[in-house]
């Protein structure tokens, strides 16, 4: 049997698949960030906290109201999305005329407050959330044991990412959105309510983060810091893909998940750093990111 750099091919396939699964989370989160940045010009640092809220809300729905996973998958993003809309109306909308930095600072502060509150009430150890019975167990693929739930994560994430891409790039609504990004005044002159569209877009981006959070709840510990650990990596993904590029964020999300997965096999100690090394290289060679347009 041949081996690649001392790793049997079975193990390699397994790791590629796992990388894809992690990439699914990166893709969903970076997609939300890209949409928000593209339309609002806000670097949404609260994204990780909103991802955490998605998981937390689904835990609350289950434990306080007996709402099962499948409904939570729908309800939690809506609930968290609504909190996003409120935040946008009350706070973020006041910063549009200022530099990016102010939006970044505001959302970073919000993230710390949300995480702090969650930590205060629920502690740091995390809350148990079990895999829905329909998706427990797994398949033996020969080269690895693939839990059904992980397969579902990849499928769900691909559907959501592709639908979002389709809506933004191929539909009339998406055309309005893209036009409003280019020239909000002109689009407003055609009778389209641009501020409302911006608000809803923020709500949608936040909802995407929450959706990823619900997907994550059964496999990662639901704890206040789950988003904070992830968000820095996701920002690197967005930077590599090109700020504001929809397709770029999806492809880089999955791609970097795979790169990280492979690093875990060949040199696990470096797996936390590899994405940032790539980011540094991309910034040096192509500062606008792999899929970004130079302004």
């Amino acid at each position, binding site marked *: 049997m041949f081996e690649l750099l001392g790793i049997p091919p079975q*193990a390699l396939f397994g790791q590629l698949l796992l990388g894809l699964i992690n990439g699914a989370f990166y893709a969903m989160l970076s997609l939300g960030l890209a949409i928000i940045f593209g339309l609002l010009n806000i670097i949404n640092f609260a994204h990780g906290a909103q991802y955490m809220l998605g998981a937390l809300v689904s835990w609350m729905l289950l434990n306080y109201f007996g709402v099962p996973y499948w409904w939570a998958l729908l309800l939690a993003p809506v609930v968290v999305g609504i909190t996003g809309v409120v935040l946008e109306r009350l706070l973020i909308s006041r910063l549009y005329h200022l530099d990016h930095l102010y939006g970044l600072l505001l959302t970073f502060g919000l993230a710390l407050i949300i995480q*702090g509150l969650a930590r205060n009430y629920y502690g740091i*150890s995390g809350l148990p959330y079990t*895999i829905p019975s329909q998706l427990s167990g797994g398949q033996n693929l020969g080269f690895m044991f693939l839990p059904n739930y992980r397969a579902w994560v990849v499928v769900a994430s691909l559907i959501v990412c592709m639908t979002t891409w389709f809506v933004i790039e191929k539909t009339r609504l998406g055309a309005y959105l893209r036009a409003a990004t280019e020239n909000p005044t002109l689009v407003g002159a055609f009778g389209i309510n641009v501020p409302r569209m911006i608000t809803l877009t923020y709500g949608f981006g936040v909802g995407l983060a929450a959706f990823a959070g619900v997907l994550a709840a059964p496999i990662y510990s639901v704890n206040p810091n789950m988003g904070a650990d992830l968000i820095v990596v996701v920002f690197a993904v967005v930077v590599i893909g090109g700020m504001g590029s929809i397709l770029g964020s999806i492809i880089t999300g999955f791609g970097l998940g795979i790169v990280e997965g492979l690093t875990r*096999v060949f040199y696990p100690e470096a797996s936390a750093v590899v994405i940032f090394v790539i980011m540094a290289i991309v910034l040096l060679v192509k500062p606008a990111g792999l899929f970004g347009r130079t302004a």
Partner: protein
Amino acid sequence: MKKTGFLLTALATSLFASTAFADVAVKLGVLNDRSGVYSDLAGEGSVVAAQMAVDDFKAAEKGITVEIISADHQNKPDVASNIARQWYDQDGVDAILDVPTSSAALAVNDITREKNKVFLNSGAGTSDLTGKACSPNTVHWTYDTWQLAHGTASAVVANGGKSWFFVTADYAFGQAMERDATEVIKANGGEVVGAVRHPFPGTDFSSFLLQAQSSGAQVVAFANAGGDTINSVKQASEFGLVQAGQSLAGLLVFANDIHSLGLQTAQGLVLTESFYWDLNDQTREWSARFEEKMNKKPSMVQAGVYASVLHYLKAVEALDGKGAGEVMAKMKETPTDDPLFGKGTIRVDGRHIHPSYLLRVKKPEDSKGEWDLYDIVDTIPAEESFRPLDQGGCSLVK
């Protein structure tokens, strides 16, 4: 930095009491993780535990004024060093308590020795604190990697788990844990077939678990802690390691972790702890009082903070002074006796000696309450729980 003052009660009592002894004022600093992965097992709960020790000791009535301050070291050795220096140099702190995260604890260990103060460690695991890094100014109270490795690994090997794979957190604690456990496994006729070091803290352990799975080892051991262990065990259950015939061993698992995992996921896991709230009437009584304040049962780390502060205050009372050298000597020559760890001693290398407990996580149907987590499989007597004095390489041992 948050101040928890006892000054008011302390002052009030000392003003009115016609005290015969001179007042001693001590300042204790609880330095631990207040926001990260270890903030549930240490965090504010350790401050509360220290406060309970001061109250239970009735320090004020005995002429000892105690002020407790606390800070977050964020599990970073550099942050811990800076705070420790500031506390000793500027804030007049006499003793630093708790300090989970071995790398941070080793840093505070050095600074405490340099400044000639007292370090009562409860939260950190590395057995180097009483081994090659031992210091005359440090007491390592609650647990260490040698103790846990021996408790858990020798029991698992004895039950037929001969081949091991380690999933290890890549820092001082994880490495010490892996090293100490490897020693035990080999000494008992087992073998280590592989190990993987993951960045600390981690989130996704599936890659490492897959490597563990393909290694074919009988036992997959987690040499990590807190949130890392929770995620590892949760994902091991998802990837069907146990169904496929491998067994899991948690080398450092706290009651809070099991509570968070849920018995459904964690059942059957074998582990070692120094303290469990449901050991006897005294631990139950104290834990109930702790729960009133914190809304959860104490971890062994928090119990260790309580017991070590109690013993420290006894030494201060006996000496009517707080000089580090005298206090340390007094603490070592006086046998320890507290409601949580029972009777014990502090050895010359700083190791506190007490029994440890081999525990197994209950099945959900056997559990009678939210915190009814363990069956006690075995009690390891105090004299067998810790590394023999002459094997640690501590320079204080002649």
